């Protein structure tokens, strides 16, 4: 019952936060100077006529009402500056699989590897294995992924010629051809995540391994491996698991630089293009704002709830 009430309360707050964020973004983007100045070869009359038809001359509050009214029906309008005439939702969903694909591949690769390295480093704490892994972690956590991008692309695609330099998207996001062609991108995206998981799992596990209850478990006759797997790992996962979950949910957020570098036709570039267009594309901007805000809020609520499921003590803490 407590959990149910807790979830209800969080959902209410999520909706409120979502509404406020969307409202603020809508108003602010509409206040941006967005009208094209007179171009030497362009009739301003037509631009104005189009703006009138698009409802841009209505008071902003009325425009917001329209946005909410149609948005609740799943209609986010059409592209006005980019993908002109196309349904923004259709464009977004056509690009989403590419982003999801590389992020899933990347997460699937980085979670086990990150945990393995982290566990190994914790078990071999202060030995050469730990030093090697920790040094690697420091390097890969510190360097942004696009730096790996240049190196990986140069080595694997040009020097060794193992992979194409850009994604072959001709057979779809989840095709074998597509997968092979994005391996360099997956590697670039994974290196930082692997390091990050390794670092947090090492830290958590190392702390747990030195705790009193683990000593107790050993004195009760459990082997080091049994104690580690049955007791230490489970406790160490409490803070790590939600972050993995969060990453799975955030796979849809995309990576602008990696997508651009490897010509992956995902959603990463959409947000920037919508704002950078000569006339900001309000519809794309608002759809993406709604989407990412929702993703962030849902991820946070799921993570919060997952704590309670993983560790019952947290759930009982609610009043």
């Amino acid at each position, binding site marked *: 019952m407590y959990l149910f009430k807790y979830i209800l309360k969080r959902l209410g707050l999520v909706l409120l936060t979502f509404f406020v964020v969307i409202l603020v973004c809508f108003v602010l983007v509409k206040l941006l100077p967005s009208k*094209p100045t007179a171009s030497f070869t362009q009739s301003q*009359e037509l631009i104005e006529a189009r703006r009138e038809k698009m409802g841009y001359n209505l008071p902003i509050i009325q425009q917001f009402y329209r946005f909410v009214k149609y948005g609740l029906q799943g209609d986010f309008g059409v592209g006005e500056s980019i993908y002109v005439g196309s349904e923004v939702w259709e464009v977004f969903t056509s690009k989403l699989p590419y982003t999801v694909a590389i992020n899933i591949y990347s997460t699937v690769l980085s979670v086990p590897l990150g945990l393995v390295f982290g566990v190994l480093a914790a078990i071999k704490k202060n030995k050469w294995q730990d030093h090697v892994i920790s040094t690697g972690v420091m390097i890969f956590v510190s360097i942004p992924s696009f730096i790996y991008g240049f190196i990986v692309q140069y080595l694997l695609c040009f020097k060794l010629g193992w992979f194409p330099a850009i994604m072959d998207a001709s057979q779809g996001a989840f095709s074998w051809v597509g997968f092979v062609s994005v391996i360099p991108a997956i590697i670039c995206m994974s290196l930082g995540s692997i390091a990050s998981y390794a670092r947090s799992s090492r830290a958590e596990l190392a702390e747990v391994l030195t705790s009193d209850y683990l000593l107790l478990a050993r004195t009760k006759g459990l082997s080091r491996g049994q104690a580690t797997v049955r007791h230490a790992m489970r406790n160490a996962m409490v803070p790590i698991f939600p972050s993995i979950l969060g990453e799975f949910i955030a796979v849809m957020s995309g990576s602008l630089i990696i997508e651009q570098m490897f010509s992956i036709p995902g959603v990463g570039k959409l947000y920037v293009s919508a704002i950078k267009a000569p006339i900001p594309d309000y519809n794309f901007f608002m759809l993406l704002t709604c989407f990412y805000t929702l993703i962030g809020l849902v991820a946070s609520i799921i993570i919060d709830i997952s704590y309670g499921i993983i560790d019952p003590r947290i759930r009982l803490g609610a009043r």
Partner: protein
Amino acid sequence: MKKLITLLMVLVLAISCFAGCVNVDKKPGNDDKNSTSTQPGGSEGGNEEQPGDEGYVDADPETNEQLNFGWKVEGDANVTYDTTPLNVGKAADPNAKYTYRTATLSLPTNWNSHTYQSNDATTVTSYTTDSLFTFDYNQEMDGYRIVPSMAQSWPEDVTSDYVGKWNIEDGDANRVYKVVLRNDLKFDNGDPITAATFVESYKLLLNPEAANYRADTYFKGNLIIANSRKYALQGQNVYSDCEDTYASWEEATADGDKIYFDLASGNSYFSNWCKENYASYVERYGYAGMLPLFGCEASVEQIEALQGKSWNEIKADEAMMATWEAIIGIWKTEPDEEMNFFCTLESFGAMDFSEVGFFADEEENAIIVVNEAELSGFYLLYSFATDFLLVHPETYKQLISNDQGIYTNSYGTAADKYVGFGPYKLDSYIADNKATFVKNPYWYGYALEENANYYHTTNIEISQVTDEQTRLNMFLQGKLDAYGLQAADMEDYQGSKHTYFTEGDSTWFVALNPSFAGLKAAQEAAKPTVEGNEVNKTILTIKEFRQALSFSIDRAAYALALDPLGGTAKALYGNMIISDPNKGIAYRTTEEAKDVILKFWGLDEEVGGDGIYETKDEAIASITGYDLAGAKTLFDQAYDKAVEQGLISADAAESGKFEIQIVIGQPGEGGVSYYNNGYELLKQVWTDAVKGTKLEGKLVFTQSQPLGSSNFATFLHNNSVDVLFGVGWTGSALDPYGLMGAYTDPEYQYDPGWDTKATQLDVTLTDKDGVTYTLRASVYDWGTNILGGIETKVEVIDKDGKATGDYVMINGGTTCDASIRLAILAAVEGAVLQQYNMIPINLDSSAALKGMKIKYGTEEYVFGVGRGGVKYMTYNYTDAQWAEFVAAQGGTLNYK
């Protein structure tokens, strides 16, 4: 408690958001149009005295003699019609596969010819569309000609068949043309293309419900198809600046019901002027409140009562008339300035498409095009070198939707939402990744014997690759067949035999907008960097200062540092601008254009005779644009003038406690090396240049925040920045006459602070009888109206430079004799340059590596045809042979 506070904060936030909501002006046309800087009754401190300011006489053209200039070209006598096919090369192996692979920074997201907004669209349409007439090599392959493509024959003048319609009178010519189409035209899905298809497509383009972005293509240019604008704008009320519609106040008041007093909208000259020069005051007092500040005795309420009233309404009301007289009494210093307070309203009623001058002669499979003005010669064919934005009507209509009650169309956004009609067919398209093309089996051209040796390319692949190094690496791996070199690549590839250089048609400038009022306002708002210093910006209004800025820049060093491919710019137009397109004569090779350069750089007395140079070309070649000693002298002169005019106060001059703050604009989104490095370079150059002068140590430079990629000129217009560099106008290589409007029309000028309507310019022209006249009109009239093809009244000046009282009507449009147009163009170019507001710095140029797989049609770049494009491209290797060749080279090719 926490919940309550949270809810309260949310409520406050929401309320503050709504408080921020503004009601956007509903009137169409309230763009950021620029205005000039005439002050009401104020001084023009620091502004240059313009020649002939006092000589203006407003006379009625009807009462003045029409002089016999007679420069209208008869018919299309100058056009050379040549359709003889070229016979070069040999046919390709029909079984071989030749794929042309290239990369682009950005694939288009829309290539619907009715709605596209970015030139990226041509990435698709250049292969998938065709045109009635097209550019081709001449017989020698060293120049261009225009030949029929989708058209079966040359345009036929059928004006006489339509007397009584579209204002065509007996004896008129060159207004209506018939173009017979080929009978074998097809879309790439096999559907036939007929004259009716063109007409239906044109109707879809002009659809008033759609308000298509490109609907103005045939009513804003040389080809103005009759009633297209009226049809496209049906149901609209269009407001515009009174001066855009009427030549004089007298003419405007004759339409007293159609002109409206307007202080508030973006169409009003007055409101724009106030917004640009006194933005902070406008915020405080409102537009109507500005007039009492300028000394008008009418109250704000009385002034506001005039808003929206027609001239006839004001005239009929004694009280309103008294207010009007109080307003104009403090404002008017020049003729016709009453128009600064009025706008016009055009209401476009319902119209049937049959009234539009674009229809079919279905019996002959011909389209008939009615132009609102006469059009002949080269520009006729050039205007018809188009597809009239043809679309596949059935597919197009299927993709129309009324999303949220708004007309939309997704034609041209995916391979299955588009039907082409060019030599290639869009086979696949993945946004942000790749587009592929195959030969269009329905294209008539492949069946023509004259094309037997051409179009070897069987497939085209265009990838989106944003990173330059990735593109280069792919090129070196043989995965791309061309690579556009970057500045950083020049060291390695400048001398390569595979490198092809191409000069562009753009000139890049350092642009200034010396609006006294604007600079003064910015100066007053600026804070000194050293306490106690007087801040100055108005010194920019002194010509010597701007001239000194120009002379300080070593163009060669500038190019080396920022744009190694660019050449030195010496005038508004570069070497690729064609002034006589029929003969292919480049403007800069004409004597008139050479004289402009020589005069601008002060070498006009140094050629021939006792001069330093034997020829004009020799003198022009010697110009570097760099004269440090001259710049230092000019800086001193500018300082003296600034002190004399009180721009720098006597106290500040005496104590030396002043600083000249110059904000250098940063177009783009920030982080662009060209603008960042350029800022540092200019800062260093100008700081060094004032050393040893009275301005030493007085220049303080700052770089603006990124100004964005589209509206950056606005920041110069409102004097938020003082200097922009690396900016200019691109395109219009065949129409420098029309482009001159960009430098003389305040709506487009980078420097609207220069009042081109108030600046008189004398131009000497020779009529067809060999008699020479000097004529006077404003720079605006010469550069925008006359060269833009609008018949305009100009005054005849006697040999002593005095007005004779005689007037002549001049139209310098496409039907005007080439020599007259050229003379006007050169005169206006000279006038613009002499302001030193647009300081030419470097010329646009590019270089590319050509892959070993392909061969171009010609080694030299030919205007209009390039190096032959995909039509003339041939291959040294088939795809299979190429893969073997690259592998044999170890997978990496050497192009150095």
